[in-house]
């Protein structure tokens, strides 16, 4: 089962922000992490992550900086800002409202 396009688009922001809450990370690692935690159910087209990161940066939710990895490869790391943390909390709340509603409905149906 894979998620629909709209759902992927809507969930991308909270997921990225939540990953960055744990620690600063870069594009490739973020995608790896998403696959790991969703057991490969959430499959993003790799390239689409970057415009999203851009938008989040422009909105002020994350900041970026370049770091050289041990291999000598340059990587662009992202760091969540205070505004990003607030946004993340808000989005999580919204998602749990939806989730809760769905749960209530399915419980009513079961009865």
């Amino acid at each position, binding site marked *: 089962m894979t998620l629909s396009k709209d759902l992927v688009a809507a969930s991308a922001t909270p997921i990225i922000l939540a990953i960055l809450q744990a620690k600063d990370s870069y594009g490739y690692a973020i995608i790896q992490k998403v696959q790991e935690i969703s057991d490969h159910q959430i499959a993003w*087209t790799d*390239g689409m992550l970057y*415009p999203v990161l851009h938008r989040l940066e422009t909105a002020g939710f994350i900041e970026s*900086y370049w770091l050289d990895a041990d291999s000598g490869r*340059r990587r*662009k790391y992202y760091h969540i800002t205070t505004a990003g943390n607030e946004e993340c909390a808000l989005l999580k709340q919204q998602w749990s409202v939806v989730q809760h509603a769905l749960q209530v409905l399915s419980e009513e149906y079961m009865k």
Partner: protein
Amino acid sequence: MFELESQIRKWKTHLYSAGSIGHADIEELESHLRDSIDDLSARGIDIEEAFLLAVRRLGDIAVIHEEFAKLSTEDVWRQLLVPADNPLTARKNRKELAIVIGLALFAGLLSKIPALFGYGDIEASMEIYARNATFFAFVPVSLYFIWKRSLPIRQSLLVMCSYVVLAAVINLYPTHEPHHTMMLAALHLPIVILFLLMYFYGGPSNQSHNGWRSTNTRLNFVRFVGESFIYCILIGLGGIVLILLTGGTFELIEVDAFPFIGSWMAPMGFFGLFTVAAYLVGQKKNLIESIAPVLAKIFTPLFLLVLLSLIAAFIITPNQAYENRDMLIWFDVILALVLALTLYSMSAKDFSENESTVTVDGKPAVGKVQNQHLIWDILTLALVISAVIVDAIALSGIIVRLSASGFTPNKTAALGENIILLVNLVLLTIGYSRYILRKGTFQRIVVMQMRFLTVFAVWAAFVVVAFPLIFGFK
């Protein structure tokens, strides 16, 4: 044989070409691609397979472009002064900017040196300024590269010494009426200096480093010169508007600003321009990188039309070309421009494309792409061939004039240039024909052309240094 690096380069060029993805973004995507390839090949997938898979996972490039274009429509120009990604680069960028501004001012001050010797009036002592303008413009650019590339000081000083020798030659040689050898020297000096500048651009050549001798560096240098030229024109136009505005506004309040503009603002701006352009080319690669191939493609057919109409005009009225001296000069100018255009389109072409084709089931996978380029290669060949014909006409014109009035400095210089141009154009014709018939690689044309640059520089140096001696400084 699959070459990862050249494939990645090709992929990057492809990303650049639409222009909506910035330099840093492409670097980020590249780093992602490489991570992805590493991971895949660690799982035992071979490198070619891993590359194709990683590219596919990144997704449809057209869609990525679209997404990025939505983001960046308004900030293409903001990227011009590179945003600092971290405090360290920020400090380095600020330092570089300070050095560039300092060197630009230094260029302006250099142009005031003649004033110290009592030649302050630019119009009255135009000759002195014409002779030395090249130094005012390019010495600061050389210094910029010495700093930027941290070149070894001893060797750089050695090359700088040749600047000094040339400056001595051009200023200390006596000059008599009608000053033809002096004007020729002033005209040829930029070619020599540009060639020397290549050393500062590429750095020294040795075993560990492909410096200024390598074909690649030379090709990059050609592109650099072309791009600087575009920047110079853009900024120069802005400068002219600024000067007119300044002069006009001060006139309204009855202050005559033109003496200040003429002796300070204009020369400072003009000579500083070159350093600033050199800086911008290095800083903002992708902005012009996407323009260069387009310009080459616009002007190749147009120049072909000009050359064809020249040939037609010559067939209809052959005597005009021989008798009118100006016409021959214009022939030469157009030929030089054609050569410059060929060089430029050469540097703008991604010639690694045909050397490393990805094969799928034994068939070249990028066969279609090759055909797309073919039409442009044929156009370039047509351009070069018509240039050979025009050059032959010009050459015969010069020989007719030489037999009529003997060797004068101007005609000898024109003769030399035409012979060199003819040889170069014939070599290009052979190269392009072989390439189109698939008997030779594009790389070979490039190697030949980049080596040939030395011939131009040597001839120009000969005109600067030896012509005055041969023709008695007249």
